[in-house]
């Protein structure tokens, strides 16, 4: 909406289908109640409008009726938000918003008059309250949180999340505006600065499986703390390694197997000969090196010769597979593995490639043998145990288990990127420090 494509790509990847935690707010005078997701990965407030007639989703949720509010102010500016799953459109209005016992006055929000997606039809929530920065707010609307601070309604410009991951307890969790609740964390928070305003984005280091490096983020990745996403999303190169380690289902990739069979030994040789790893795939002809990352041969052919057309995604897949293979092999060589062992391992990884933003099933009976997966943030290692990163769907004999990890590939300069959703925020109490522009994590209690 802002015209900056950098904003659009990541907002589009949001997935509210799996959102799990929501709370209640009021809009208008007297307050009309709505259940909303408190979402740190977006910045607008929207709820269904009473003028929403043609979307079935609106008939299953609470609707805002402006004529019933004495504090309503007309705005009328059109609004349109597209998410990865789901989209809404409508117009802006202004009214008082009640959050707990606070009343935020003259808050801009979107009255959604169209919710055509299945996402919002089946959703347990009515709308979304964004807690991200104004920089990514559609229509440049001032977020609710900004007005809370501006109107002096909170003691400190800080809010914090606690998610109750204990499945047996009814209490879902708590969001605290104005500070932190010491009952819901242990020890001290580790703080990292916000590196790119818009999202709550920060720098993240290596990802470890059972204490061993996965390599890809060792020299740094970015991460976004996102309460509106359920899973933990990260680069395919690492998620494939995680899938292999936890026995998660994957997509068997013939391109991947072909790269290993045809070029595996050559790649190992080139790594051992200290060739620049990022140039290996171009040197063997699977990618064209552009100085920062591999570019597939298909794209190069279009750039070089406008009369030729790209012939499909095969070479593209070979290029990205080759780049992943180099990372995996480098990592195995660092662990002093033999060539045969490396080729076998990488070939096994080819059976575990995740489908982008998809789910991977795991065996519910094997949790005890699965490794810890750890993320390095601010120089500190944050562990996740199997029972914390595996989600159970259904009960008893019908129960199924899915991995809390999903693949998301964002290229530089914005990526490689991780989205730390509820799976991570459930394990670690999270502080969003707006005043000092930093995010803090401590063990949840």
């Amino acid at each position: 909406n802002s015209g900056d494509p950098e904003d659009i790509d990541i907002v589009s990847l949001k997935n509210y289908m799996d959102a799990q935690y929501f709370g209640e707010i009021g809009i208008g005078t007297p307050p009309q109640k709505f259940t909303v997701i408190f979402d740190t990965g977006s910045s607008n407030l929207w709820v269904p409008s009473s003028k929403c007639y043609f979307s079935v989703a609106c008939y299953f949720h609470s609707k805002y009726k402006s004529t019933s509010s004495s504090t309503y102010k007309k705005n009328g500016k059109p609004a349109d938000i597209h998410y990865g799953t789901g989209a809404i459109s409508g117009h802006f209005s202004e009214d008082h918003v009640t959050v707990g016992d606070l009343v935020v006055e003259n808050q801009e929000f979107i009255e959604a008059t169209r919710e055509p997606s299945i996402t919002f039809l089946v959703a347990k929530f009515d709308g979304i309250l964004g807690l991200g920065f104004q920089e990514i707010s559609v229509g440049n609307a001032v977020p609710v949180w900004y007005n809370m601070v501006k109107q002096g309604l909170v003691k400190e410009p800080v809010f914090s999340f606690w998610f109750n991951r204990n499945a047996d307890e009814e209490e879902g969790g708590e969001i605290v505006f104005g500070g932190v609740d010491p009952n819901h964390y242990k020890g001290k928070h580790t703080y990292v600065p916000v590196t790119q305003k818009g999202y709550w984005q920060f720098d993240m280091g290596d990802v470890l499986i059972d204490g061993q490096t996965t390599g890809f983020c060792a020299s740094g990745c970015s991460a976004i703390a996102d309460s509106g996403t359920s899973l933990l999303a990260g680069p395919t190169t690492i998620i494939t390694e995680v899938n292999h380690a936890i026995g998660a289902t994957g997509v068997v990739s013939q391109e991947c197997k072909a790269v290993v069979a045809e070029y595996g030994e050559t790649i190992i040789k080139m790594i051992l000969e200290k060739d620049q790893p990022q140039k290996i795939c171009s040197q063997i002809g699977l990618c064209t090196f552009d100085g920062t990352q591999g570019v597939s041969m298909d794209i190069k052919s279009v750039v070089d010769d406008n009369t030729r057309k790209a012939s499909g995604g095969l070479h593209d897949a070979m290029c990205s597979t080759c780049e992943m293979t180099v990372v995996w092999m480098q990592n195995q060589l660092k662990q002093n593995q033999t060539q045969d062992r490396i080729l076998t391992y990488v070939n096994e990884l080819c059976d575990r490639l995740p489908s982008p933003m998809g789910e991977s099933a795991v065996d519910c009976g094997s949790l005890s043998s699965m490794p810890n997966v750890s993320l390095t943030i601010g120089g500190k290692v944050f562990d996740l145990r199997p029972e914390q990163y595996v989600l159970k769907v259904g009960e008893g004999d019908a129960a199924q288990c899915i991995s809390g990890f999903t693949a998301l590939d964002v290229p530089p300069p914005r990526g490689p990127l991780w989205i730390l959703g509820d799976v991570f925020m459930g394990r670690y109490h999270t502080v969003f420090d707006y005043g000092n522009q930093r995010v803090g994590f401590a063990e949840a209690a």
Partner: protein
Amino acid sequence: ASNGGLVRIGLKKRNFDQNNRVAAELESKEGGARRTSIRKYYLRG
């Protein structure tokens, strides 16, 4: 409730359920074209 300048909002929790997974599958079919264009954008970017 407000307490010492803090405003606490209790959150409700929903478990993963089969309805949502079926819906997600339908949604991914509907959103297939959009995701393709996102991938193209990445390559340009």
